């Protein structure tokens, strides 16, 4: 599944494609079924897809992931902008984007909400504490797109139909979707996977409260719902005590 945060990045790429006649290549690193992510992106208007898949990539941390992805970028040749999502939903480190930029030696604009390209110059607005910044940059550059940016639009029927069509033709499919492994992109196996990751996950704990413990009040009359809420608060002595104590 396309990482929810990456949908904003894809939307930005599609806007650029529309306004600047650009082409979009989507890159994903994952097991073979991750090709579905690329096909999904095609449906929204992406032009090419690359799947980097290799068993040796397993357990890569962000440093190793960014190494692998930057090698894909090198392998693909010239580009104007690399978009990444702000973060992933599992790891949510927000590191892979800036680390790709560092390795490629290109500038970055993170937390980008708005972006346009005029005369080969990027103009962007990014989120900061207490406000925003207006930035200007040349290309190439790497942009991480904030989830406060424009949400991904709808798939167009024509695009979806076109994708269905080319998927039926193996030669067309091969032109549009490349599957590569570490050797294809000249990546050093020592710098990926467990071996190339400077960090490991030691121990994990479940955190109790979050997820599914919310007591919902709905469907009754509002009056009744709020009464029930109060009853619940009261049952939990700790809660009501602390709340009542703070009445004015």
């Amino acid at each position, binding site marked *: 599944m396309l990482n929810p945060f990456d949908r904003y990045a894809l939307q930005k790429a599609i806007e650029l494609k529309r306004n600047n006649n650009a082409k979009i290549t989507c890159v994903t690193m994952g097991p073979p079924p991750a090709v579905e992510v690329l096909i999904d992106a095609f449906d929204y208007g992406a032009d090419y897809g690359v799947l980097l898949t290799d068993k040796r990539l397993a357990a890569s941390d962000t440093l190793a992931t960014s190494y692998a992805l930057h090698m894909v970028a090198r392998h693909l040749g010239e580009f104007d902008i690399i978009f990444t999502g702000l973060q992933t939903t599992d790891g949510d480190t927000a*590191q892979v984007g800036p680390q790709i930029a560092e390795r490629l030696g290109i500038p970055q604009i993170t*937390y980008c909400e708005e972006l346009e390209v005029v005369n080969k110059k990027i*103009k962007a607005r990014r989120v900061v504490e*207490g406000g925003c910044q207006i*930035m200007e940059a040349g290309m190439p550059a790497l942009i991480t797109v904030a989830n406060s940016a424009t949400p991904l639009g709808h798939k167009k029927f024509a695009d979806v139909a076109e994708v269905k069509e080319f998927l039926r033709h193996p030669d067309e499919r091969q032109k549009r979707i490349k599957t590569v492994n570490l050797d294809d992109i000249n990546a050093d196996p020592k710098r990926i996977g467990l*071996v190339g990751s400077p*960090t490991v996950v030691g121990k994990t704990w479940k955190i109790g409260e979050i997820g599914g413990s919310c007591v919902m009040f709905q469907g009754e009359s509002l009056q009744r719902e709020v009464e029930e*809420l109060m009853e*619940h608060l009261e049952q939990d002595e700790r809660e009501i005590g*602390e709340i009542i104590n703070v009445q004015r």
Partner: protein
Amino acid sequence: MSSAKNVTVIAEQLQGDLQNISFELLGAARTLAEKLEVGVNAFLIGNNITNMAEKLIHGGADEVFVVDEPELEEYATLPYRRAALTILEHLDEAPPIILMGATTIGRDIAPRIAAYLKTGLTADCTELDIGDYHHKGKADPTKTGEYKDVLYAIRPSFGESLKARILGPWKNPQMATARVGVMEKLPVDPTRKGKITSVKTAFKPEDFRVKVIETIRDLSTSINLTEAKVIISGGFGMGGPEGFELLEDLASIFKDSVVGASRRAVDAGWISYPHQVGQTGKTVRPNLYIAVGISGAIQHRVGMSNAKTIIAVNKDPDAPIFRFADYGIVGDVGEVVPVLKQAFLEKFKQQKTASGV
């Protein structure tokens, strides 16, 4: 002993003001440093900021390395990166640990520094500690071994459902960013003494490939969100500034209460930035947090999920806020808020009668 062995904090200042996170990091660094029996270094980067170095010493630093250059007036990735790397190169060895804030600045620059140094970085930590680690790995036997005095970087993951301890004992510095409002500051000690070392940076033309054209920012801090016992927060679902009057009204019945807001409500201009709760606003932990017309985006959640009791009011039963609130009322803000207020007033009255006041 070389001061390079010290636990290092990259301090954060905005417009000439040291941010709270800098002192929180110093607090965390001191605890780690004591366990390692070393001192604490701070890096201070900016323009016209040398005079703030002393404050970092009062907050727990033993040595402050300052890069003070006109090119660093406003935060920008590459010049600040250059300054930090210059200080690191100035030291004769890599510090064991580098801490930064999980702010838009820390999350922008820390990954680049880590990638440059080819070392590990753990994002958004909520706990930091020192301990031993025994690694048994089949995939890479060269890593196997007993490691002493390793940084335990502890962070939530998988949408806050898990807590994970991340380790990177093989290479220094071990880097981590810490969430705002989580680590404990030390009491300010104006008698503490330390060393201030100024470091010159040679920028390169490519450090200026991104220009900051304009920064629009409101950093006033007149609202005491962090101390409040009850916070009534409104989001984009409030529909306009009038909605926030409704919340003021509800807040007025509680002692130690303030009105909070989501970023979207602040961006819309309905309420000012000092009210904002979340990643780029305040981190709060009141006894009661009522989120009204707020969807519950991750950046809002990280600022308020430590509230003891969370009540959410939203017309959309599928709003993500209901996944981590304790109680949820599905309904329109305009209708629910007055009823809530009445119900609380009623409860207060009952309580008073019962206790005979």
